[in-house]
């Protein structure tokens, strides 16, 4: 379930951020020449937002997995493969 929430989070960011960006950018045409710093750093921050979101989902999942499925967890149960002893 957690991964599905994460998935929707990512999708939401994919849609919302460009839309917000577009709305703010409209009617805000800079006069004169394009500023390459603005274009490039904008792109960078957008990608970092997505990267850190995905990173939070991935590393959060890994940390939760390590916490929940460690053998010392109170609810840890032998996996079905342990009965046969071969995996």
């Amino acid at each position, binding site marked *: 379930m957690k991964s599905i929430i994460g*998935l929707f989070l990512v999708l939401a960011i994919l849609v919302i951020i460009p839309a917000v960006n577009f709305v703010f950018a409209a009617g805000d045409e800079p006069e004169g020449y*394009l500023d*390459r710093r603005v274009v490039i*750093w904008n*792109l960078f921050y957008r*990608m970092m937002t997505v990267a850190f979101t995905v990173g939070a989902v991935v590393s959060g999942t890994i940390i939760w997995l390590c916490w929940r499925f460690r053998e010392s967890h109170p609810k840890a149960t032998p996996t079905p493969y342990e009965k046969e002893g071969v995996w």
Partner: protein
Amino acid sequence: MGHHSNWPEWVYVGVVIALMVWVGSEAWNAERLVEHIPADAEVIKVTGQQWFWTFEHEDGTKEIGELHVKVGHAYKFEITSKDVIHSFNIHDYVVLLDAVPGRINTVWFAPKEVGEHAIQCREYCGLIHYNMRGTLFIEEDKSS
């Protein structure tokens, strides 16, 4: 092994591909904007050599290690090298392009505010690569 359906993995792969398509198209669009050189950009010839930068303006004036430009103008750098590969870099304005002997590479920028910025070499070029630095002076345009 393998008594399970694989749909979560395919959904996941689909999301990754969608993300990469988004990254690719955004980057493509930004690069397209950045690469479009304005027609009225003034040419500055940049030459790298071990271990300093030489700049030649359109009117023929030459500068070594220092570059003076004016706010509100667009400048097109034509970058080359006399000996080994260097990399011309004004990090504050995200200007970066290799100076390759035998080739002329072009990149442009338009300074916005008065100020001083570091010029450096970002490609390894030998003994004093670490100190192949210069200064960019952005000045008020007094003629207009």
